[in-house]
């Protein structure tokens, strides 16, 4: 049977009842003619039980890499399983390349060692991993605690320039976004509470709501969330890139420990900056609420009196103390994931994501812990 697969190539396919088959190719075997020829051969050969296949290519006037690929595929008996295949009539120069390229079938699907993974095994491995992570985290925490006194009590050995730089990047540069976020937060809380409190004729207490919510919870929490997304991620990416570029190894070979060198300045900056930003956030949130209340017709002295009577200094102290803890969490988690960055192009991205997610989780857990403690102490 002669089938012109394309204008440039003719393929004769003969399948005999005794299991012998013969394919004769004539013309040009290139990327244009190979797909058609492949479909034809697959249709003619795949469903039949062929024991020997002879491919005669002496009639080819041109054969390039795509053509050679088809011949290699046939030669590997991928199309005719269990058949003995021979490719005959290649021109001398092509024959040399063809022989060079003959692939063993096992190269196709390398036997990957697949570990049996039972349910219990999975849990065991996960627990082992968690245990290892916990140990590493404790070592990291210990190293930070050990490095802090050295940095604080030996100012000459601290990297204050780096700390100043981080304070500016994480603190001063975050002021515009904190302003906008807190002002809008104040608006939202005031509007939402005003609507509900109006039903009881108690709109004046909007001031109390804003003050309590901003000072005790939303101020520290929202600032910490913003810092986790803005600065925690940048710490992880920065230190992660340094690790990928072997800059951390360079530090170690100088005898410089990355923890006092890179981590401590960021933690000090975090502890310093977060309470300041939180205080500023509370102020902006309250201003947002005051603007709404002025719009509702209350006078400024009345609003200020109401604000002052709604919280104690203790509340502000708790909010600021919380924010300092959140600052440590954001900086430490960012640096920790940066230091744990693996090799590869996605490693830094992965570390950054982990840093933000872990920070957010720990901030919420810490906030819940603070709320429980302050409730129990009252």
């Amino acid at each position: 049977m002669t089938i012109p697969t394309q204008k440039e190539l003719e393929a004769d396919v003969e399948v005999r009842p005794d299991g012998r088959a013969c394919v004769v190719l004539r013309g040009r075997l290139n990327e244009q003619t190979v797909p058609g020829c492949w479909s034809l051969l697959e249709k003619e050969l795949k469903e039949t039980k062929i024991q020997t296949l002879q491919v005669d290519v002496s009639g080819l006037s041109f054969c390039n890499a795509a053509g050679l690929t088809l011949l290699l595929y046939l030669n590997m008996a991928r199309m005719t399983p269990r058949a003995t295949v021979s490719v005959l009539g290649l021109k001398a120069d092509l024959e040399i390349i063809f022989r060079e390229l003959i692939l063993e079938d096992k190269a196709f699907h390398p036997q990957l060692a697949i570990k049996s993974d039972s349910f219990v095994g999975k849990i065991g491995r996960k627990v082992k991993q968690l245990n290892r992570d916990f140990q590493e985290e404790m070592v990291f925490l210990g190293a930070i605690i050990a490095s802090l006194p050295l940095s604080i009590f030996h100012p000459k050995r601290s990297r204050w320039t780096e700390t100043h730089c981080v304070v500016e990047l994480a603190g001063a540069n975050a002021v515009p976004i904190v302003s906008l976020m807190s002002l809008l937060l104040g608006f939202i809380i005031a509007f939402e509470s005003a609507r509900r409190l109006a039903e009881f004729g108690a709109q004046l207490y909007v001031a109390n709501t804003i003050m309590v919510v901003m000072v005790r919870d939303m101020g520290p929490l929202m600032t910490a969330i913003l810092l986790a997304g803005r600065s925690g991620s940048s710490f992880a990416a920065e230190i992660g890139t340094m690790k990928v570029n072997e800059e951390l190894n360079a530090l170690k070979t100088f005898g410089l420990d990355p923890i006092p060198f890179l981590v401590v300045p960021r933690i000090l900056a975090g502890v310093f900056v977060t309470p300041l930003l939180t205080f500023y956030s509370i102020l902006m949130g309250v201003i947002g609420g005051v603007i709404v209340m002025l719009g509702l017709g209350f006078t400024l002295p009345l609003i200020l009196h109401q604000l002052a009577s709604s919280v104690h200094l203790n509340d502000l102290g708790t909010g600021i103390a919380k924010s300092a803890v959140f600052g440590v969490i954001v900086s430490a988690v960012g640096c920790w994931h940066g230091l744990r960055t693996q090799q590869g192009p996605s490693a830094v991205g992965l570390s950054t994501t982990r840093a933000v997610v872990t920070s957010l989780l720990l901030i919420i857990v810490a906030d819940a812990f603070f709320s429980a403690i302050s409730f129990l102490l009252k």
Partner: protein
Amino acid sequence: MMNAPDDIAISVKDLTVGYGDTVILQNVNFQVRHGEVFVILGASGSGKSTLLKAMIGLYPPLSGEVWIDGDNLWAAQGKERLALLRRFGVMYQSGALFGSLTVLENVRLPLDEFSDLPDPLKEVAALARLRLVGLDAAADKMPAELSGGMQKRAAIARAMALDPRILFLDEPSAGLDPITSAGIDLLITSLHHFGFTFVIVSHELPSIYSIADRVVMLGSDAQGIIAEGKPAELRDGAANPWVRRFFNRQPDPGHSLEPAGNL
């Protein structure tokens, strides 16, 4: 379109390259013949890589033309330009393998994007390229698991994926030990026998002597070609003393670290 003589693979005409107002190379002219191993060499900062980037369509020249198989690279647009880009493959200095893909997937990627071959054939084609560079056993490894020399070989296999006739190699031996470097030279020589044309940027003298048919040498001060010919001829008989010093690994007489005398 102008047709170049049949044996000319690449023709660089009056090419001026630079960044902004800074001119690095001015009015460079040379031709690369089919089946030739052509090496561009020069001191660090002489504009070798910039010239290569202009020749492969990455960095637009300030003026001049690059003709590949008779077609003007920088004048071609759209599909015509795409077809022209497929006539050559490029191996970058770092290998530039995609780190999230296996070696086989790296080589398969251009085939998946541009070839009409059936999927099983694409896999055979990718594996055949890896076989040519001796890496078929490492097909399922990730690039990070390969040594520097293996990464360069894998990058050569990927450059060959779409069956180009011209291969541009940027510093194929840089950063490799002499044995691995010699292995890359051997690979280039054996691929050369299969009919590939090579344009190689290098300043590794042992490699240049063993593989190059012809070289052009770029000079920073001259902002252009200061010598052209066979490496052994330039070593022994170049008119420019700097070229002779380069080929004989002799230091610049103006820069001596030897003690000036008794202190």
